């Protein structure tokens, strides 16, 4: 039976059909839905890990214990997991293991546009690059075979469009893959130098046998049509190239891309007049083809950034221009993402943005929106967890300046704290910087769409588990100044900031209130009783039109320019009351039932 499913869903299905028994991931666009879908199969033990490194390490353990296992992550997640990834390639597998990387050409929801194909080359792991959902499923099943046959983890490289596009997939049955016995093998699994040197030789030799596979496998194929242009491409670029050139070009479509198939590339080059490489991001295939001594066009004509969408290819090859209608263009206004009505981050950033002599070092989550209007209360964003350690370094330097008044406030969410912020906080405790760390604990991993994390008290399968306390962690690290506050109470936020800024030693503030979109657990309902049930309104007779309430950036607040009065959309308001606390004349009031 054929179904129209996304690449992420197809990978999940492929994992199930391949007999996978263990899956772990940290959420990250566009990879999140892989584990969410895997978790719907009861035969696979699925886990949200605190971060990508722990996810991959537990997958290594699962593989050694004899179960086929899969770790999935966004491209930058593999940076976090790079340490185990490289050495996993050395020690190899027991049962098959696959690492999915979801890259983001075009950067829809990421801090950079790195090309993770370089990881496969560098770690010398086999790599697949599917172009559509059917290939996602088929190649994933094959990836487990390759992993076991060559005793090495496989990198499975997807991109946003492959992850999030739907195409038809023929579904199959689950293979019965029994758990392999674990055999103690210190020489194989302990990567000390004496063992690791021969391991590296084994990995290098592996590349030779994998090259034979690459030249002969069904995933790398020549499609001969017109011979004037020969396109070499992988992943979704194949689909875009087909769209532009149709049968007017010949194709070397690559689905298995490390190692690359020398013989096939040479054969293809001999059959066409001119080689053009179409790939997103880095000249990964191009540099290889050039190194074979084959002349080609690649990044000398195509951009290295952004997606290689059909219109991009067309404009480069045919000089086709896509002039925009000026009248239309000038009429378009932005629709920026905003913190939701009732978002518990609002009250905190409203207060923080008003502070002087403060550097706010930020992190990755919904709260990164605080860098924009109207808050402008976040000054750095680098990577997960960086807020605290970056802030630590900055504070250490500021404090060497005589008469320093600058204080650093590091802000990160609960999930980001558990991800890697926890390590950074250790740095602060150990190296004694006068840093103010604020954990915005909204009781969920919000930006990627409401995933549980070590603080929520619930697993991906909804089982009750230990709800790790951030406050207890901070105290255990030795912080004497720890406060738990309700971010919707501006007086509490103000007071806590005054207190922290007045201290000559580090402090930790935890703002604890659930995300407005969270499906609350029984414990949440008890702790946050009555949350998100009120509605506020503006008494126009009292409103003086000062627009202070609009500076909270709440999407429920609509300023009526004709009347010069504010108003609140009752459909959107969930009663956080931040605007009412900001109003200087008490024009904003609770709607009494």
């Amino acid at each position, binding site marked *: 039976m054929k179904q129209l499913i996304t690449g992420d869903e197809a990978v999940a299905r492929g994992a199930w059909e391949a007999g996978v028994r263990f899956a772990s991931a940290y959420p990250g666009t566009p990879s999140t839905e892989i584990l969410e879908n895997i978790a719907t199969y009861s035969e696979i033990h699925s886990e949200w890990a605190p971060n990508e490194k722990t996810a991959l390490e537990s997958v290594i353990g699962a593989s050694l214990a004899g179960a086929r296992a899969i770790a999935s992550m966004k491209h930058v997640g593999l940076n976090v997991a790079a340490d185990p990834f490289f050495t996993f390639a050395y020690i190899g597998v027991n049962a098959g293991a696959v690492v999915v990387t979801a890259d983001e050409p075009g950067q829809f929801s990421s801090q950079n546009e790195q090309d993770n194909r370089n990881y496969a080359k560098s770690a010398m792991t086999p790599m697949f690059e599917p172009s559509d959902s059917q290939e996602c499923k088929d190649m994933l099943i094959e990836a487990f075979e390759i992993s076991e046959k060559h005793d090495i983890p496989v990198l499975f490289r997807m991109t946003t469009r492959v992850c999030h*596009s739907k195409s038809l997939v023929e579904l199959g049955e689950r293979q019965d893959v029994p758990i392999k016995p674990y055999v103690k093998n210190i020489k194989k699994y302990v990567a000390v130098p004496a063992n690791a040197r021969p391991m590296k030789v084994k990995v290098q030799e592996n590349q030779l046998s994998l090259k034979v596979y690459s030249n002969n496998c069904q995933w790398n194929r020549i499609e001969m049509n017109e011979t004037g242009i020969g396109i070499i491409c992988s992943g979704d670029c194949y689909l875009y190239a087909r769209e532009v050139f149709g049968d007017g070009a010949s194709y070397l479509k690559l689905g298995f891309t490390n190692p690359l198939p020398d013989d096939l590339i040479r054969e293809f080059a001999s059959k066409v007049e001119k080689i053009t490489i179409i790939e997103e991001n880095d000249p990964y295939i191009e540099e290889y083809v050039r190194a074979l001594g084959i002349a080609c066009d690649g990044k000398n004509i195509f951009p290295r950034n952004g997606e290689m969408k059909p219109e991009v290819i067309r404009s480069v090859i045919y000089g086709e221009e896509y002039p925009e209608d000026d009248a239309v263009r000038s009429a378009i206004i932005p629709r920026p993402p905003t913190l939701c009505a009732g978002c518990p981050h609002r009250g905190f950033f409203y207060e923080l943005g008003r502070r002087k002599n403060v550097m706010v070092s930020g992190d990755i989550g919904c709260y990164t929106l605080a860098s924009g209007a109207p808050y402008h209360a976040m000054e750095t964003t680098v990577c997960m967890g960086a807020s605290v350690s970056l802030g630590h370094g900055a504070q250490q330097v500021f404090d060497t300046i005589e008469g320093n008044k600058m204080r650093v406030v590091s802000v990160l969410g609960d999930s980001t704290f558990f991800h890697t912020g926890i390590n950074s906080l250790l740095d602060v405790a150990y190296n004694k910087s006068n840093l103010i760390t604020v954990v915005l604990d909204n009781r969920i991993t919000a930006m990627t769409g409401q995933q549980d994390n070590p603080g929520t008290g619930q697993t991906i399968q909804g089982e009750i588990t230990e709800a790790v306390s951030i406050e207890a962690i901070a105290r255990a690290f030795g912080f004497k100044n720890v406060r738990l506050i309700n971010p919707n109470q501006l007086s509490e936020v103000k007071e806590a900031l005054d207190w922290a800024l007045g201290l000559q030693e580090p402090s930790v503030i935890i703002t604890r209130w659930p995300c407005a979109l969270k499906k609350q657990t029984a414990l949440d309902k008890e702790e946050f009783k009555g949350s998100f049930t009120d509605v506020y309104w503006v008494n126009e007779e009292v409103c003086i039109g000062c627009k202070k309430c609009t500076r909270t950036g709440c999407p429920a607040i609509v300023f009526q320019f004709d009347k010069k009065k504010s108003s609140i959309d009752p459909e959107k308001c969930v009663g956080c009351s931040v605007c009412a606390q900001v109003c200087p004349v008490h024009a904003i009031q609770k709607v009494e039932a």
Partner: protein
Amino acid sequence: MTTKNILLTGVGGQGTILASKLLTEGLLSQGYDVKMSEVHGMSQREGPVLTHVRFGDKVFSPIVEAKKADVIIGFEELEVLRNLEYLRKDGKGIVILNRVRVNPIGVQNGSDKYPENAEGLISARAGKVIAMDASEEARKIGNLRVMNIILLGASVRQLGLEEIDWGRVIAENVKPQFVELNQQAFELGKSLS
């Protein structure tokens, strides 16, 4: 047949996801090859939503190329304007336009001005515009939420897809208690196009 290109554009919460789900299910029931792509990005509540749907004998790219959209199903005026560059330029492009404005935060707080003449700009560019207030029509039949199905109904005639058994597609993909309402909304939409 040549591949047909459709875009559904609006803001989160307007029901574009269900409309595109029904559209693709209908196309599949007719035996077409179908591909669909959604831009997720950082859209939270009320963020822009853009869904690409392509169908034909054999479809390669899941995304519609600039200047190649045959039909834009526009749930919100500004979002149609934002994606108007996708519409084919030979005067054969069709826009199903919902006369609905969802103000971005910049309009609500006064830093931006909502484009006054969106429909005029769209009409100047499109071969045909079928404009309606689908929210108002939805309210008339008793449920604001079926606005999306009204717009879908309005689209099928323009797409030449009337032969598909849409009543059955709706019955198979919508919660039982809402099937009749959605079928009614679909027929209403069809009659408005």
